[in-house]
């Protein structure tokens, strides 16, 4: 593998758009504050080099200006600033990125970093380089600590499997008790019952089961038709429980999927796929403690779709951030398991660039068929990534929801209720203007969640999430 160093590539080939920069902001207040600093006024001694580093001095209220440095090379966008803000990235870093995105002349291109900036950038890149070498060296001569590892790790894994085993058995018992006593009785017990069960599953080190149990708890208050939904989800949880308890008899791929669903860590399994990966969507979900960023990638050469996850603890944006609408030349390492699209972002080569192939879309029937097929591999799947070739967003006949209608006007997919009323759906309606647009999104039993769209003849997907 040709391991090119960051230095010899033009990381800054394509400037980001303001939207892409603002997507980095940890919250709305930072977005606003950053926008305000995206004008040349307070900045001085600002510049960028060809390797992906940006720096500048930003005048604040104090006498000494803040020193802001951003590094776009490597995995994720990193920044440092002498300001006291604990937000990450801070408003100064956002402002500097905006200036750079707008090609403001105050950020002088192609210069050497100022001394105070260069030090941090060099340190960061040396660490990244060392890490990479460490990773490639591993299979050969592993360090002493690692040799002791396999045996200990195996014992740890066995202990954990045993605890999950106990947890899954307990959950089975609770589910059958529930069905004997009736769902109506459970509804009267309220959310506390589920919360307690979820806590038991956390103790059993099965976070996947715990999350599903918590979901169950919210169904009785989710409006008409809840008994059907609750029975469905209870049944699928029972299916997962049973699959875990009988995993020895499952095909290897399905067993891996079950392990992941139960909550064991998922790891890259297959060989790296090198491609030009178009970033179709990037959006965050938060459970109050951890922010999960989901990034959908489309391989412009291979036609594969991959899901990259990145996590951020409270108050911090997840580390990986990719510009929606642009393509990244990179390696992606797929995780194992039947029907799994999750992948880890590996080495990146060069800067994000515009253009290249867009995924070919199908009709609404094909989208549902794709979901149906995927369920054969992973029956717990809530949705699959799908591109619809030419659909028109319209109000559903019930007047409440929305639909995506095939261009011939006959068949439709309901838009997921979570997307209705969100700004992204209005963006989609505006882009369509009543005509067909291509839409990428997540299609499943809960409807279709639009994440990106592009019109006929326009080259760049526009983020909707």
């Amino acid at each position, binding site marked *: 593998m040709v391991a090119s160093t960051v230095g010899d590539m033009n990381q800054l080939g394509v400037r980001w758009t303001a939207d892409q920069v603002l997507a980095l902001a940890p919250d709305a207040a930072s977005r606003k504050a950053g926008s305000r600093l995206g004008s040349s006024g307070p900045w001085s001694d600002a510049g960028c080099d060809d390797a992906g580093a940006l720096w500048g001095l930003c005048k604040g209220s104090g006498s000494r200006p803040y020193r802001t440095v951003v590094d776009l090379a490597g995995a994720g966008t990193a920044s440092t600033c002498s300001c006291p803000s604990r937000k990450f990235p801070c408003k100064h870093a956002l402002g500097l990125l905006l200036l750079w995105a707008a090609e403001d002349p105050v950020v002088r291109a192609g210069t050497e970093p100022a001394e105070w900036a260069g030090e941090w950038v060099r340190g960061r890149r040396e660490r990244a380089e060392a890490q990479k070498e460490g990773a490639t060296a591993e299979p050969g001569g592993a360090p002493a600590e690692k040799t002791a590892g396999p045996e200990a790790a195996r014992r740890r894994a066995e202990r954990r499997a045993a605890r999950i085993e106990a947890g899954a058995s307990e959950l089975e018992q609770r589910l059958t008790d529930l069905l004997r006593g009736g769902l109506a009785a459970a509804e009267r017990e309220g959310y506390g019952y589920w919360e307690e069960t979820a806590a038991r599953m956390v103790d059993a080190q099965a976070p996947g089961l715990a999350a599903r149990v918590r979901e169950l708890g919210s169904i009785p208050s989710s409006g008409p038709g809840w008994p059907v939904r609750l029975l469905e989800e209870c049944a699928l949880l029972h299916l997962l429980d049973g699959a875990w308890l009988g995993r020895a008899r499952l095909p290897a791929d399905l067993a891996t999927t079950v392990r992941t669903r139960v909550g064991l860590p998922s790891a890259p399994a297959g060989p790296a796929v090198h491609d030009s990966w178009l970033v179709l969507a990037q959006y965050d979900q938060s459970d109050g403690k951890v922010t999960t960023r989901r990034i959908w990638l489309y391989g412009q050469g291979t036609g594969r779709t991959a899901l990259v996850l990145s996590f951020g603890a409270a108050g911090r944006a997840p580390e990986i951030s990719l510009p929606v609408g642009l393509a990244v030349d990179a390696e992606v390492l797929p995780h194992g398991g039947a029907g799994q699209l999750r992948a880890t972002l590996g080495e990146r080569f060069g800067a994000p660039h515009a253009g290249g192939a867009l995924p070919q879309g199908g009709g609404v029937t094909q989208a549902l068929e794709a979901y149906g097929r995927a369920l054969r591999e992973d029956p717990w799947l809530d949705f699959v990534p799908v591109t619809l070739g030419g659909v028109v967003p319209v109000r559903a006949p019930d007047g409440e929801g929305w639909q995506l209608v095939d261009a011939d006007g006959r068949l*439709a997919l309901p838009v997921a209720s979570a997307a209705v009323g969100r700004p992204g759906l209005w963006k989609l309606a505006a882009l369509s203007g009543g005509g067909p647009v291509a839409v990428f999104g997540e299609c499943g039993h809960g409807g279709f969640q639009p994440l990106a769209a592009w019109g006929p003849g326009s080259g760049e997907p526009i983020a909707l999430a």
Partner: protein
Amino acid sequence: MSTVTPPPAWEEQVTTALLGTDRRPFPAQEPALALLDAAAVHTVRRRAGLMPAVAGELPEPAPEDGRGPLPEPARRRLAVLLADRAAPAQSGGRRGSAPDLTELLPQWLATANAHRYRAPADLLPALLDAARARTDLRPQALEFAGARGLWLARLNPEWKYALRGTSGAAALPDVQDAKAVRALWEEGLFAERVGLLGAVRAADPAAALALLSGTWATERAEDRLMFLDSLRTGLSAADEEFLEQALADRSRNVRAVAAELLSALPASAFAARMAARATSCVSPDRTGTLGGIVVEAPHECDAAMQRDGVVAKPPAGRGERSWWLGQLVESAPLSAWSPRLNGRTPQEIAALPVADGWGEELHAAWCRAAIRQGDAPWARALLGAPSVPPEAGTGTASLAERAKLLATLPDGERADWVADFVSAHGLSEAFQLLGVCVVPWSQALGRAVVDALDIARDAGSYPWSFSGVMGLAERCLDPGEADRLEILTTTPAEAEGASPGAGGYWSEAFQRLVGTLRLRAAMVRELAGEA
């Protein structure tokens, strides 16, 4: 699970699950487990076999927008300006050194509209949201949003505002198409008709008058009032006959508007009647030695006066006679006064002493007349020299009225007057006057304002005492002045007696000013398609 008998139907399963297998039997060895198994099979089968829904009606596509696309940098800029709006306002009163992007939206939109650019579709929702929150943005935002913006606004009740008033504008027929115009005028909704009348009036005042007089007798009173208001545009002697008739209207409000419009036609019979009444009350002082003006206010408000729109009953606290006098003078053509007062010029008349304390009343009425008739020589005379303190001046001390008088002067003269005013009196009373000056400010005006700010800083006050003028300067100064202002952004050594820390705040305020000017210059360049 090897149940020989097929599991009960799904509805049965749900009912059993709801009540519990202890209460409602389920045909299996272990009922609860069997029910979960059966439900799992059903669930996966149902999800795998999902069918598309029947489609709702496809919408009418949005009309084509023939305008050109925005240059990419301008598009990015708009996204940033709109993103700034979406975030919560900064806490506290301090404005920091960064430009206030929201305030630049109106200018950006005006420039983009002048270039006739099409709004990028994906930014339309944010644009409609912005204009929803700020009514002053609406006309420009909706023009920029164009036909697709209106199309979109119909889908979201939150954007209903976009369909009011201007909604007609999108669907208006060509004003030359007499048949279509006539059809919409006779059958359209009120908002559409107001829009139509305005559009026709702008293109062909006589045609609009013909349209209105054709249906006048059958219109409702509040509609008549709105329609009559449309005649302000392109008002001319040709409208006199119609307005004279409207003086006899059943509705008092309609009568008042008709009288007001007629008073703006100095050659009309109405104006002649008002001139005769007004001049009979005001005469040169022939007895005294002062050579001033004597006023004999009317003693009654007769039927003929009331027919001409004079309101007989004064508001609480005002004397009847001064109330009537004010209305007569206000509605009389200003050209009547020079012949009445021995051929004096407006300047000379404004300088004459007025006997018995009637001066304030008379000057105030003249000011209203000058504003209504757009009479620059009279406005000039009543404003007096900018160096004279407002309270010692001739015409009016009210800043609002002064601003309106200024608006009748030619652009350059107005800017010079305000510049001299600012140089003489500083900024504390200048805000409203600056508001009527053409943007960007002339060099003389811009420098007067900046000098005044500099003086205020040296005097040791805090910049937020001038935040209104600062904000105006950010939006109205010529962006070309930015380099000249750079020197003011440094923090000076703290002077004796200055407010603590003021120097730093001033430098911050000037930084914001310079930053905003640079940004405005960049916005203009981007929209012009210059790199």
